[in-house]
């Protein structure tokens, strides 16, 4: 066609990015790759290979190795061998390596971008302008943390060998989110890239060679789910970091339960995109383009549920449809397309199946007239209107370019709909009214909230979810803690077996004197309540003498306590000063009962320990009263007109299984940080001295602790703990009993993937404030929500 014809039509025409360099790189490797282990290219032990495919054509790009358990073992051994020398380097030396990675990524930016697009199908604009620059940014940011490690993370030690399993939607970016913090903190890693997209990880391994990274610090083992399983199960791995589906996340939680491996999970999402009637609607439409049609919607934090105020429903959906017509879909290496190919055939099938299900459920499906390329795996941008919360497509993650539309009437309803999901990864809120936007942002349960924006990322602003979107954060200071643990804990001996088991053994009833007339009940919702079971059990002193009877709690007491705790959630909104004041008052009131408590507790733990427990208990109350208004979030300044407010939010309702070693001090040390941060607690006092409840609840009552903020349920620890760990309306569980109990908690927690905070059966000296008190507890008592706030008119 001539210029004259083009002059009439003014179409965009093809603008292909030249894949020459990336193809040459593939050819240099003979289009065949093996594992990168201990600084060497390592043939797979079983000789198995599989093909990775260009989703835009279906053509094979290269053959890669299928990692077996032997390969994983070799990689873990290499990482273990490299650990000592890596940690022996100065922080500055590690910073140099991370800096070199950042520079190397920038120097080879285009080759990496093209390779990513070929392997994954995402538009070259995205890999070139978003993925790769964010990768470099992540390494720069963590070169900084490597340099500052001893100063900024004093008292913390690296976990050791980190096993990392990443998804196919942002292959190299997810690699950087995993490797950068792990190395900066002094760990060595074994990384398994996704089976559909292994190429950039292998290219990255080559960059590690080029910068002379010591052998074994970074190992890459390719393969499918079986390889990941072998890595998660390997007994010499200290930490597992996983990004992927919630289902696999659950399996990994269960598989690592009894191993003492530290775990972080970044899982699925069904993120709301809330548009109020006063929003800049044209900009909100572009926000949806960035939210759900970015990377073909294969983004865990994609704004896949549009919630729109009724008054603008018609206008907004009309604008959306018009905009969808102008989205250009085509070969991902074309520089002027908006949407490329779906990364894998199975994913395309899943999208097709779920959309059909949505239509069957009564939704109306609208797609623009855009033609799909004949070859390759493509799916058009799709709008499902008339979607009700009860529909499958409103609840299940589709992971494709499909936006569901639901309307709301009021702000309150918007928040309810937004939170009506098992997930809690991200949210967008659109309004020109800062009061509306920030109110909604604070009320949505999600780890990231973008005000008048979508899918913005920065290495300093941590990313990660609430609820079944996982736990742990990536990026920023919070992200570093996922690869560190307190030095004392790292070196702590195993917890000695306790004289009272939490696992079901029960002190024998002894014949003797009649019961002392002291009625201790459960403490639920600020009231003393008889146990639902109608049973009590005898509690004995260390010398075997009967001390009294404690209520024997059961499932229903736990249920009631959790409900009471939810009713008290206004505590989270109480001012920090108010919470501090209440805690100080508790300390004051306990001091007045000091002698009485020492005397009673002394019968169980001996007078010396009792005296220390009570005295330090008062001190601990003061410490958390002090912390109540000092454990603040942070403000970050990412690029563009934004500040991100990193808020430390309470988790909600938390179950606490108190330590046995120090019945009073242990309970205070675990319950108080939660309460100080605004959580409501259901605590199971140590079975060694459950009567401690009877001392505490009068104090709680007289100290103005609102009813329901602290609930105390005594009974058989293992049974009550299991009910709590399985409870879907409990956000987290703290377990400081024995190792078997810790494992049981982790296994029982997979229903809603609640966070489980334990010492993994290691010993904590509750009498040492360095171990029994402070930020380690406060960090686990909160989760960080990053609210991206734009500014400027």
């Amino acid at each position, binding site marked *: 066609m001539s210029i004259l014809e083009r*002059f009439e039509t*003014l179409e965009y025409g093809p603008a292909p990015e030249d894949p020459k360099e990336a193809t040459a790189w593939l050819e240099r490797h003979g289009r065949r790759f093996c594992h990168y282990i201990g600084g060497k290219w390592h043939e797979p032990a079983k000789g198995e290979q599989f093909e990775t495919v260009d989703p835009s054509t279906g053509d094979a790009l290269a053959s890669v190795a299928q990692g077996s358990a032997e390969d994983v073992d070799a990689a873990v051994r290499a990482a273990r061998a490299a650990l000592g020398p890596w940690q022996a380097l100065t922080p500055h030396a590690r910073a140099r390596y991370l800096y070199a990675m950042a520079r190397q990524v920038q120097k080879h930016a285009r080759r990496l971008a093209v390779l990513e697009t070929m392997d994954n199908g995402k538009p070259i604009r995205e890999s070139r302008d978003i993925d790769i620059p964010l990768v470099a940014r992540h390494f720069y940011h963590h070169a900084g943390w490597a340099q500052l490690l001893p100063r900024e993370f004093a008292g913390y030690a690296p976990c050791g060998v980190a096993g990392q399993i990443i998804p196919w939607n942002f292959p190299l970016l997810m690699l950087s989110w995993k490797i950068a913090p792990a190395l900066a903190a002094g760990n060595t890693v074994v990384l398994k890239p996704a089976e559909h997209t292994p190429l950039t990880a292998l290219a990255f391994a080559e960059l590690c060679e080029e910068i002379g990274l010591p052998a074994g610090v970074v190992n890459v083992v390719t393969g499918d789910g079986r390889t990941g399983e072998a890595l998660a199960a390997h007994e010499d791995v200290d930490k597992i970091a996983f990004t992927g589906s919630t289902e696999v996340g659950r399996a990994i939680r269960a598989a690592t339960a009894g191993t003492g491996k530290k775990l972080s999970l970044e899982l699925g999402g069904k993120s709301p995109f809330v548009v109020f009637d006063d929003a800049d609607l044209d900009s909100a439409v572009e926000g949806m383009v960035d939210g759900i049609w970015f990377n073909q919607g294969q983004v865990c934090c994609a704004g896949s549920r549009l919630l729109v105020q009724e008054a603008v429903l018609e206008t907004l959906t009309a*604008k959306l449809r018009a905009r969808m017509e102008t989205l250009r879909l085509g070969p991902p290496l074309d520089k002027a397309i908006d949407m490329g190919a779906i990364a894998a055939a199975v994913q395309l099938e899943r999208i097709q199946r779920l959309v059909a299900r949505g239509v069957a459920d009564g939704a109306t499906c609208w797609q623009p007239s855009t033609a799909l390329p004949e070859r390759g795996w493509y799916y058009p941008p799709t709008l499902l209107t008339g979607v009700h919360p009860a529909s499958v497509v409103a609840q299940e993650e589709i992971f494709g370019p499909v936006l569901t539309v639901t309307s709301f009437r009021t702000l309150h309803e918007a928040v309810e709909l937004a939170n009506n999901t098992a997930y809690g990864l991200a949210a967008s809120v659109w309004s*020109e009214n800062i009061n509306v936007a920030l109110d909604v942002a604070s009320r949505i349960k999600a780890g990231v909230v973008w005000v008048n924006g979508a899918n913005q990322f920065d290495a300093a602003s941590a990313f990660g979810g609430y609820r079944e979107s996982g736990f742990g954060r990536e990026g920023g200071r919070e992200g570093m803690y996922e690869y560190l643990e307190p030095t004392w804990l790292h070196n702590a001996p195993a917890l000695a077996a306790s004289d009272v088991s939490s696992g079901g053994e029960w002190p024998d009833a002894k014949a003797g004197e009649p019961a002392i007339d002291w009625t201790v009940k459960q403490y639920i919702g600020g009231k003393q309540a008889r146990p639902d079971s109608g049973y009590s059990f005898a509690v004995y002193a260390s010398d075997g003498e009967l001390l009294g009877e404690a209520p024997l709690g059961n499932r229903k007491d736990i249920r009631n306590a959790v409900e009471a705790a939810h009713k008290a959630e206004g505590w989270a909104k109480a001012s920090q000063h108010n919470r501090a004041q209440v805690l100080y008052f508790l300390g004051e009131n306990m001091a007045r009962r000091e002698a009485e408590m020492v005397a009673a507790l002394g019968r169980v733990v001996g007078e010396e320990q009792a005296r220390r427990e009570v005295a330090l208990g008062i001190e601990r109350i003061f410490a958390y009263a002090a912390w109540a208004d000092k454990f603040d979030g942070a403000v970050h300044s990412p690029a563009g007109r934004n500040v991100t407010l990193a808020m430390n939010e309470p988790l909600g309702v938390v179950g606490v299984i108190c330590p046995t070693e120090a019945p009073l001090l242990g309970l205070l040390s675990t319950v108080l940080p939660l309460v100080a941060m605004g959580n409501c607690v259901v605590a199971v006092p140590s079975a060694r001295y459950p009567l401690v409840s009877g001392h505490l609840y009068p104090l709680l009552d007289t100290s103005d602790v609102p009813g329901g903020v602290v609930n105390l349920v005594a009974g058989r620890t293992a049974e009550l703990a299991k009910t709590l760990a399985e409870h879907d309306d409990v956000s987290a569980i703290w377990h400081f009993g024995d190792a078997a109990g810790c494992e049981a908690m982790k296994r029982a927690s997979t229903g809603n993937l609640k966070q489980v905070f334990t010492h993994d059966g290691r010993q904590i000296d509750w009498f040492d404030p360095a171990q029994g008190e402070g930020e380690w507890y406060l960090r686990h008592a909160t989760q960080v929500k990053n609210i991206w706030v734009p500014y400027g*008119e």
Partner: protein
Amino acid sequence: MRRLAREREATDGDTAMSIKSTEINPQRNATRPHEEDAWRSNPGMPLDLDWVESVAANTSAIERRVQTLTARRTVKKEWQAAWLLKAVSCIDLTTLSGDDTAERVRRLCAKARQPLKAELVNQLGIESLGLTVGAVCVYHVFVETAVEALKGSGIPVAAVSTGFPAGLSPLAERVAEIRRSVEAGAREIDIVIERGLALGGKWQALYDEIATFKQACGPGVHMKAILGTGDLMTLRNVGRASVVAMMAGADFIKTSTGKEAVNATLPVSLVMVRAIRKYFERTGVAVGFKPAGGIRTAKQALEWMFLMKDELGRPWLEPKLFRFGASGMLTDIERQLEHYATGRYAAAYRQPMA
């Protein structure tokens, strides 16, 4: 309901907007876009203050859109050549300097008739286009000179008017200025709004003033309203002033005089273009857009064209609905076209100057 029906209609078809084929006919010789029948003057509408007040423009979101828009689109090879030729046809070739003389204006008009050197036209194989710029834009005193110099070319003369660039001379004089330019043969009048009225939220006064100007232009003369966006400061002000100007009958809305500290920018243009879209959706009237000031390169020209095509659709890439207020940009486009034609990077001194 009527409005919704229009919105639906607007979303049908291949482009974001579709105008009835009688209005934009691609079959017609696009090189002569200045024929009377191609225009449909904006009749305006009563001032709707609710609409004006409801204009929202979120600066950071708009900046992001503009950043990604220009990264999402590109044109290469013969497509790029065709787009750049279209850009040439949309230029209001402008001279607005204190040292302008009649001879300088004649030189500009000669360039307007023949924006590309004959050799390049041959190399591109576009002789049949009879390519010219969109208009020549001058001060009132040179209108007659320009009309004379452009006789027979079909290229209209645009006059900046109404106390350009500040727009602060007495109203009667501003109105008289328009009449004199129209009498002298100007077919397009670029008026400037009184920025103070917009800054003070005096929308009724602004509306009345612009409506008065439109009336003074009379039938068949096309009025471009310069908003002076650099002075308006905020995008919301720009959005509101755009709406008021269109309600008052502006046929084009134009960013700047070229004399403000900040002139045409993409964020400001996006806000104006979205206002045009909404006005079209509500009234069915297509208003044109003219970014002016600071657009100097072929690359910038393409960025603005991507904005027009993606936000408004193909019809807004015709000189009837889109103009660049520029002078130096033409030379850069000539260089890019010569590079396309020869494969060698081109020099400015080898392009005939205006």
